[in-house]
């Protein structure tokens, strides 16, 4: 089966700085890859390249069956629609409520209102928080709202940049459960994290990146964890 992500010698420039200096990486569907490495190693750039948000200047880059080189409008849109990116920024409109935000982004990706409601329920945002403007949420609550958007869009490739940051214990457990469910449902997951213990417990593979290249790629062999939340998966 075709890997979800296939990179060979991928170089990506930020201005004149080679943030990625030749990356070789394959991620299969159903895999949970932990991406670790020091600050400035290229983790975020790698995730953004996989989302077709940054151009790969040279080298091979295939994501979800699309060649990133020469990707034109409609094909690029089709690819991006299947990618869920959880970045440091929320990607939400601060002045809209959680419910409005999740509904808008879910519907933009072709999902319907029911998907949005189910995702909010799953992230425990269906109570009081539902009608609160995103700008007035705490950092952890915002992260949950971003996760709800990701979940509602049902992406085939999850790109999570420091997903545990800012979440409380319950939130982290919930997130781990979601990641496990996603992978079992056939999504490929790449998560960049400094929190080694927590991330390693869910990852099926650990990849170390430094200086814009992969320096270590080892199979951990952990089975995806079972969802811990009492609620049913959406």
């Amino acid at each position, binding site marked *: 089966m075709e890997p979800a992500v296939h990179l060979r010698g991928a170089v990506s*420039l930020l201005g004149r700085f*080679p943030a990625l200096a030749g990356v070789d990486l394959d991620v299969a569907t159903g895999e949970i890859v932990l991406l670790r490495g020091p600050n400035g190693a290229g983790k975020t750039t790698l995730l953004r390249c996989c989302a077709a948000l940054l151009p790969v200047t040279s080298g091979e880059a295939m994501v979800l069956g699309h060649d990133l080189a020469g990707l034109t409008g409609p094909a690029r849109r089709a690819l991006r629609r299947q990618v869920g990116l959880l970045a440091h920024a929320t990607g939400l409109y601060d002045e809209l409520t959680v419910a409005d935000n999740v509904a808008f982004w879910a519907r933009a990706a072709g999902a319907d209102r029911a998907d949005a409601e189910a995702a909010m329920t799953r992230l425990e945002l269906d109570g009081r928080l539902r009608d609160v403007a995103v700008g007035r949420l705490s950092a952890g609550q915002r992260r949950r709202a971003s996760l709800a958007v990701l979940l509602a869009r049902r992406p085939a490739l999850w790109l999570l940049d420091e997903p545990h940051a800012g979440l409380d214990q319950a939130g982290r457990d919930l997130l781990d459960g979601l990641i496990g469910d996603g992978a079992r449902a056939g999504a490929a997951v790449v998560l960049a994290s400094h929190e080694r213990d927590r991330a390693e417990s869910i990852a099926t593979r650990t990849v*170390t990146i430094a200086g814009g290249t992969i320096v270590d790629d080892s199979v951990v062999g952990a089975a995806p964890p079972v969802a811990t939340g009492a609620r049913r998966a959406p």
Partner: protein
Amino acid sequence: MNDGTSSPGTRVLGALTLIGMAVLLAFALVISPADETQEETVRMFYVHVPTALVAFGAFFLTVAASVGYLLRRSEGWDVMAGASAEVGAVLLAATLVSGMLWGRVTWGVYWTWDARLTLTALLFVLVLGYLAVRRLPLERERRSRLAAVVGLLLGPATVACHYATTWWRTLHQGPTITTADAKMDGTMLFTFFLGMVVFGLLYVWLLVHRFRVLWLEHRVEDLGLDEAIAERRREAVGVS
């Protein structure tokens, strides 16, 4: 002599332009007669009208090259659009200066809201905006793309501005100014066409040089990329 943006071709072109300019100056300032109605001020037209027309041509090339870039995404079109806009901006400034000085001596004021003068001023601001986009500190590909769209939009903007300013002046029945009311004799006509040729040559000459300067800027940007990648990879040593 690989020390700049010259080549045998541009040297010949440059020599032709300079000789042509000298001949043009002789005709414009000495040989051609003063006009009956406009007297000596007609000598400004030999610079005013050619710079204006060539500047419009330069604009047209910028628009065309921008479209070319959007279709082909090749560096050459992008650089061509930028180079043409730069030279066009200089020529437009020359048009404005000569137009204002002519206005000063003929109408007694530096500026009137003549349709053509207003259009030229608008175009000048439009091209300044375009050049501002070209100087944005962005990744080259993105900057080229934004510049190409702005360059493409110069076309319809010019057309819209043309109709708006023309109707604006004619419907308001302000001072109607026709610049072509002078009766031109043979020498004057020859001087005018010589001016067109010389400023055309000047444009092409400058265009080629600016194209090469912008091209070199890109090459300098690319410089040391392999070295930078190797250096970046050395950061990885000892991390795993």
